[in-house]
């Protein structure tokens, strides 16, 4: 049943493997559950460039989350290569993957996942304490416009505010890549746009490569490239010559 149609998603314009943050080659993922095989990825090739803002679009079950998990070292492909700066993530053990996440990856989740028992600053500090050359927690909060609420607990913040703290937490360690799984999925339009503004701002000011999953096609307008997924394949790559400002988006 496997459709063997390789999708080419290299960024042709920029060259040299060393430039790329991630290089994925023929990545396949199959989940086996009691004799039933579910193909999540059916051979994906993708290069992710430094400082790039990528949006992954596609219906449920198309493979976006699986791909994001591979980039974040949360999952391993069944076959294929996932290279991060020349290092093959597929060969790393659990401890090394933890190390990789700690040093190189920032995560932003749909439901923020702040630690409820820690204040905004402390949630950020949780990460900066284990990072190499982090941004000071308060500076990170300033970056997302949350400095005035630095000492609030998650329960005292709105959803959008919690998500901005989560972004501050993710970027404070100066990650190579910021991985966001539907960061606006649980937010109203206004809060969502505010969060997207922050993300675009961080991407621009810190140059953090950002990969974001969304169901919302409109958001693709603010990306450098939009990767369209369907049925485990990359079916289209849309390159935006001009990124739209987040505040100009509406849905």
């Amino acid at each position, binding site marked *: 049943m496997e459709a063997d149609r390789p999708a080419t998603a290299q960024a042709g314009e920029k060259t040299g493997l060393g430039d790329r943050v991630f290089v994925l080659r023929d990545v396949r993922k199959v989940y086996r559950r009691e004799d039933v095989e579910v193909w999540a990825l059916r051979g994906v090739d993708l290069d992710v460039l430094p400082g790039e803002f990528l949006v992954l679009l596609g219906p449920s079950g198309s493979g976006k*989350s699986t791909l994001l998990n591979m980039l974040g070292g949360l999952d391993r492909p069944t076959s294929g290569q996932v290279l991060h700066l020349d290092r093959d993530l597929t060969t790393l053990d659990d401890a090394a993957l933890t190390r990789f*996440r*700690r040093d190189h990856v920032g995560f932003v989740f749909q439901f923020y996942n*702040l630690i*409820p028992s*820690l204040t905004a600053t402390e949630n950020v500090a*949780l990460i900066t304490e284990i990072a190499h050359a982090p941004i000071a927690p308060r500076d990170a909060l300033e970056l997302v416009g949350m400095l005035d609420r630095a000492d609030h607990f998650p329960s005292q913040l709105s959803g959008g505010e919690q998500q901005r703290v989560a972004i501050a937490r993710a970027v404070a360690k100066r990650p190579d890549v910021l991985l966001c799984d*539907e960061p606006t999925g649980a937010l109203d339009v206004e809060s969502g746009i505010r969060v997207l503004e922050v993300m675009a701002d961080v991407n621009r000011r810190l140059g953090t490569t950002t990969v974001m999953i969304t169901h919302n096609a409109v958001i693709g307008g603010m990306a450098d490239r939009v990767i369209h997924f369907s049925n485990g394949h990359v079916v289209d790559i849309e390159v935006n010559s001009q990124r739209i400002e987040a505040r100009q988006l509406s849905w």
Partner: protein
Amino acid sequence: MVCMRALDRILVRDVLRMQGQLLAVSAVLACGVATLVLSLSLMSSLDRTQADYYRQYRFAQLFARLRRAPLDLGDSLAKVPGVAQVQLRIVMDVPLDLPGDTAPSVGRLIALAPETDTHLNELVLRQGRLPSADATGEVLVSEAFAAAQNLQIGDSIHAIANGRRMKLAIVGVVLSPEYIFQMREGAGVPDDKHFGVIWMNYGELAAAFDLQGAFNDLAVMLQPGASAADVIDEIDRLTAAYGGTGAYDRQSQLSNRHTTDAILQLRSVAIVPPIIFLAVSAFLVHMVLSRLIGTQREQIAALKAFGYTGREIGGHYLRLVLIIVLVGTTAGAVIGQCLAGVAATNYEKVYRFPSLVIHFEPRIVLTALLVTACACIAGAFDAVRRVVRLPPAEAMRPEAPASFRPTLVESLGLAHWFSQPMRMILRQLKRHPFKALLACLGIALGTAVMILGSFIQDAIDYVVQYEFYQTRRQNVTLNFVDVRPPQALNELRRWPGVLRCEPVRTTPVRLQMENRWRRVALTGLAPRSDLFRPLDEHLQPLSNLRQGLALSIKLAEVLDARLGDTLAVEVLEGMRPVRNLMVTALVKDYSGLNAYVEAETLHRMLDEGACCSGALLSVDATQLTPFCEKVKATPRVASATIRSALLRSFHESEAKNLTLMRVFNMMFASIIAFGVVYNTAHISLAERKRELATMRVLGFSRGEVAQILLGELALLTLVALPIGLAMGRGFAAISVWALNTESQRIPLVISPATCAAAVATIVFAAAVSALVVRRQLDRLELLEILKARD
């Protein structure tokens, strides 16, 4: 119907999925039920067996001893109003000469007068046959003695009767309702190996002691409704001229009192702990279930969203709870019943019944079932109600972040003293203080039941130390056949190995305070006694009694006598004088009811010189063998008690019963303790899975994440331990209170070793639980937990 089947499926899946935890809860429950069933079954079986035995073998109701009376007196006794039957007999304690045993042994020779009523105190023939009427030297021996000395039918032993060696051939092994508990008066602890009861033909025993046509002991069965007190008065009047020492009822009969007290004592080793155990396990199950169901929030919300009613969902969890209750109670009942059988086998070695059958008591199991079911349902009800009340849409969303605030220590500006994980732990505890309190209480209860289950050994050790080393410092006690002049001691001092020798004078008395009375042995204390030093309630040796009376604290309690009160003291031998004595001291002791006066006072009361009825000796331990040889060769010595032999025998018999109960209790306590700690850790994990998974994804290592969860457990355990030790002391105090009987008391003594063992068990349980939870933490499915809807 369709939806019911769906819920059935969920039920089965839930049970399978949570089997580890449900099993842990059931195990805790089973322990509570098992202790209850064990003890109540054992107690009610002992109670019933004793009553049946007494009825079936016609255990007498009154007893009396005298010096020597003609058998004709039996007719007068039988005519006393209220008397149904009289049994006349000769009862003589004599030294035994047993091959291969150097320690002196005492045989109680019993012979029934011819034509007396033989249907009282009937013997149970266990092996062999009765002695032939005309044969000489044929005897029956008590089963306890035969077992301890490994005597078989056909074996012979020798008794020293009135200075003559009598050969006694064993033809049968018997039990007697008079000697269910076989102990010599004044011994303190039973010693089956060195005290045996022997039945033989009247003619032979009468001849040996020059008692032909006479008797020196009697037993009486009363007519229904007869007044025991009136009959006792009449018997006393009739026997006074024959050296009667006063009739007494079953309550003062040694074996009956000990057996009855043992059943009473079971109530403390066996009722108080189980009730506490059951209460603790019910509490734990309540706690665990309510938290367990709390973690099922999303499933409950989903069911509700599908249109299940709150009642149906409640019913679903009720069935889950009932499964736990049924599994726990059934397992507990079966285990308890089996252990009751094991315990009964042990009890039978000390309390000799014809057959101790453990009855199954459905009543007990039903009680346990009811208690546990109520506790569990209450625990589940609360949790289910909380979740069912939520609108489904809200419940299906992950819980909103809980409100947290800085803890007090942080408000005080001490925040920088704590690491981030430590702050998370502290705030978590502060956020859910009630939950933390319950968890803490659970672990503390685990510690407490450990103490409760094991302190009895400390108490026994203390009592042995106190009674046999601090108070009675002699290692040999001799009783003379009759009262001897003080010069007799000079001879004893020349015996091999004797380092010190003091006289002792004991006489049976009846102490009366208003309408309350007890028959006890009154001991005259030698002035400046070094070997026997009863201690007062402040643990000081009794000093000047000022010609007054010293009573066991317990004796004073049963007579309701206080310091300064005056008691009537009726001597039950000789001229039977009655004197009024003032209570001038109270004695702290743990065995029997005892009364003391200065020797001088006793001699004056008895109108005698400084004579003695026995002697206390300190004998060089290396010289015990030649010393015992000497005892055996001395007819005037009725009995000799060697401390080391007595204690060894005690540890092999009665102490074993308590130890066995202790082992059971400790076993259950460990399981309960383990169950609590494990569940506490496990539920913490379930409740905080999402948070911990987030941290893992953010790059925290397993160890770092575990630190937060397990740090909380460690902190709770640390706080719980001292609380648990204090609660354990409280439980032990309740137990001690319930153990307080006339024949035995135990002190509230908890050794550091017992505390250390309890702490070690809990710490061990915590460590193993932590390890298990840590493994589950390692296997945490990060993606499952954090999965955003793709």
